[in-house]
């Protein structure tokens, strides 16, 4: 019989508070095969790990079970410790008695009894665990970045600079993301375009970066190191290899389409580039709004394009790429104003959101940087800024803080004052949050020196009265009701994940949290990795954040990819399917259930075999095999049976 050691962690008081850890250790001693059991305050600490290593040697243990937190957190830590002490890593198992026991139960007696059964379940498994060796697999050293905002651009540049090839896929026709829409950026007020465009150009020119804009992910299969990705290159109806970006077609196009880049404060033609500094600077035809596509007549752009780049017959193209690692940097959007009922649901004129205000402030925007309100072009003398529009409101909108709005609203008020000296900005806020280097100072200066009036309280209602947009609110510091007849209202709407992200994560099979932002493998210690190997996350797609944080995260994600690519090969989990030649009845049912074509009929042997490089270890074939010939390593049917029995507290 194997000699098994059981180590029960207190996790400070996290486990010990609801689970009697000493009793768990005592009970473990009575379990079959358990030769040693002990509890310890922090198993994952160095002394905790040293204890495991020491006891493995002293007690001549063949396997260990650590009863502690979720295996997602420390399985690799303890497997490494076990290996150091001479054990095969697959002889180390984690019993999750924290997330799935002590944290979710209150009755100490019942939680302890459950913890004992959890440990017993793992003891039963461990008795039959085999020692395994990881299966080496090759790595395709080429990365894919999805999303060409500042996060994606930064990650792509970092990876490319280290010498690896990279494909940057962007949905729109140009990279740049939201940062391209911003005027000046807090807290230093440097012009957003001026710091962004050089990076866009660098990404466009880098020999290791292949830009695929106006493209989307169609399908992803495979696994870390060896993904197969199908990318849809949407028809732009312009042959970009011919187009020299002269822009004549755009001048002549008679169609008028609201510019999404300018937050519908301006229009462009049906053939357009979203903004003049676009990379690549090539137009696309918006099929839904093109007069020719709608009515069969026009083709003006074709006539003026001397080099014949316009191609109305162009079709979507699917390209296939072999990829080793994927960074998801799909960014954010903001809660649409029509969703905010008490703020006029988008029906009250001159109520705009922060991004629209950025466009009004931008020197390259629709008003060339003059603040003019949309309804009549008047320069507003009183502006009300409303923070937390849809944020921190769990009942009706989003429960979380969007993090950047306090800062950009102050920035907005400040930039407005710089342009309209006699103007009066008011800011309604719940709290002012200025965590960040130089942020508190930025806010402090604005409040003291610039004559911005901060009103602590929520806005209850916004409505139109004549040519004024009236704001009703309360100042909770003085208890007064406040009414401001404003010329313009700017809502700091909640940052939400890009709507297409939900569909994308289904294709990638990675996780999002309750608010739709991408989930990290560990909230503190693995912030740029997805739980699923080979996927990394960066930028506002992971949660609301500003540019400095976005860039830091993007470089961190790039670094993870570079470190992955620096290895010669990867190691695949060997807990996969295998076939007992003597039992296989050759019914071949397993071939039909395997999602990866990992099973094939071996003519010579006359049985079905498993292709180890392709098997992902889902176990579907094992459940399907009627002869019991197919088993999964370290999760055989007999292991499962004894685990079930143990989980029920039986012998």
């Amino acid at each position, binding site marked *: 019989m194997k000699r098994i050691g059981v180590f029960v962690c207190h996790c400070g008081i996290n486990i010990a508070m609801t689970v009697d850890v000493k009793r768990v250790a005592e009970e473990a001693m009575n379990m079959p095969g358990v030769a040693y059991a002990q509890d310890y305050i922090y198993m994952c600490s160095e002394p905790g790990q040293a204890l495991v290593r020491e006891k493995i040697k002293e007690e001549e243990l063949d396997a260990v079970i650590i009863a502690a937190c979720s295996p997602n957190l420390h399985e690799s830590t303890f497997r490494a410790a076990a290996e150091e002490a001479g054990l095969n890593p697959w002889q180390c198992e984690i019993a999750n008695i924290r997330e799935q026991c002590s944290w979710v139960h209150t009755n100490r007696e019942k939680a302890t009894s459950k913890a004992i059964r959890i440990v017993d379940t793992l003891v039963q498994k461990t008795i039959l665990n085999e020692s395994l060796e990881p299966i080496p697999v090759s790595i395709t050293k080429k990365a894919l970045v999805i999303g060409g905002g500042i996060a994606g651009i930064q990650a792509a540049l970092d990876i490319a600079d280290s010498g690896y090839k990279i494909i940057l896929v962007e949905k729109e026709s140009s990279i740049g993301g939201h940062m391209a829409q911003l005027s000046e950026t807090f807290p230093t007020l440097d012009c957003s375009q001026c710091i962004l465009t050089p990076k866009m150009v660098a990404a466009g020119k880098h020999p290791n970066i292949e830009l695929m804009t106006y493209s989307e992910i169609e399908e992803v299969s495979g696994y870390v190191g060896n993904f197969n990705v199908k990318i849809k290159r949407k028809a732009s109806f312009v042959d970009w290899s011919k187009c020299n970006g002269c822009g004549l077609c755009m001048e002549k196009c008679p169609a008028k389409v609201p510019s999404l880049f300018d937050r519908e404060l301006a229009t462009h033609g049906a053939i357009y580039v979203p903004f003049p500094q676009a990379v690549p600077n090539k137009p696309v035809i918006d099929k839904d709004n093109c007069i020719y596509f709608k009515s069969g007549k026009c083709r003006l752009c074709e006539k003026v394009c001397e080099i014949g780049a316009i191609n109305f017959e162009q079709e979507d193209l699917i390209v296939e790429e072999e990829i080793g690692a994927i960074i998801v940097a799909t960014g954010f959007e903001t809660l649409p104003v029509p969703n905010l009922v008490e703020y006029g649901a988008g029906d009250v004129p001159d109520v705009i959101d922060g991004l629209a205000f950025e466009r009004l402030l931008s020197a390259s925007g629709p008003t060339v940087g003059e603040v003019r309100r949309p309804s009549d072009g008047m320069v507003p003398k009183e502006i009300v800024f409303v923070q937390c529009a849809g944020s921190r409101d769990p009942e009706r909108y989003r429960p979380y803080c969007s993090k950047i709005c306090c800062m950009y609203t102050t920035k907005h008020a400040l930039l407005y004052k710089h342009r309209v000296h006699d103007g009066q900005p008011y800011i309604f806020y719940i709290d002012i949050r200025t965590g960040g280097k130089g942020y508190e100072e930025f806010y402090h200066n604005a409040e003291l020196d610039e004559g911005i009036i901060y009103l602590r309280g929520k806005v209850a209602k916004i409505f139109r009265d004549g040519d004024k947009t009236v704001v009703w609110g309360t100042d909770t510091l003085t208890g007064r009701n406040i009414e401001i007849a404003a010329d313009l209202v700017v809502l700091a709407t909640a940052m939400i994940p890009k709507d297409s992200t939900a569909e994308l994560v289904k294709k990638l099979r990675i996780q999002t949290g309750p608010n739709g932002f991408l989930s990290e493998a560990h909230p503190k210690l693995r912030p740029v990795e997805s739980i699923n190997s080979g996927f990394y996350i960066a930028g506002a797609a992971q949660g609301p954040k500003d540019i400095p944080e976005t860039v830091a995260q993007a470089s961190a994600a790039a670094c993870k990819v570079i470190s992955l690519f620096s290895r010669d090969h990867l190691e695949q989990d060997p807990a996969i399917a295998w076939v007992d030649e003597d039992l296989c009845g050759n019914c071949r049912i397993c071939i039909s259930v395997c999602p990866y074509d990992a099973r094939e009929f071996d003519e010579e042997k006359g049985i079905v075999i498993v292709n180890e490089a392709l098997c992902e270890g889902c*176990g579907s074939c094992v459940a*399907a095999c009627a002869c019991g010939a197919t088993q999964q390593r370290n999760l055989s049917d007999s292991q499962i049976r004894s685990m079930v029995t143990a989980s*029920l507290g039986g012998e």
Partner: protein
Amino acid sequence: MFEPKIVCFLCKWCTSAGADLAGTSRLKYRPNGVNIKFMCSSRVDPEHILWAFHEGADGVLIGGCHPGDCHYEDGNYKTQARVSLLNRLLDDLGIDTRRLRLDWISAAEGSKFANVMNEFTEELRSLGPIKLAAREMAK
């Protein structure tokens, strides 16, 4: 009060991660289930379920990813098909099919996991223990 025993077969990628989230969110639920983690819900063999009933389980929960979200393409559809087949057999054995629950619980649905555990415990309480004869037949 009758405390039903529940065996929970959870896939690693969604439901077990959802159960972890219930923990990190410090949600509270009934302690009647013990989780057994598989890579995918499609590893669950109907025989494991029958074995659980034979060994004293009052209920079995299978937790997998939502349709379309299975980490292994379509494992959860296979699970669903196997569960519907097994339901007929359970009927024959005299085991109420409400004792076998299949739920799609994602990694983001910690609260759903907690609710399912509470609901299932209540339901099994109202159903009472399984008759011994049925347990014997489940083998």
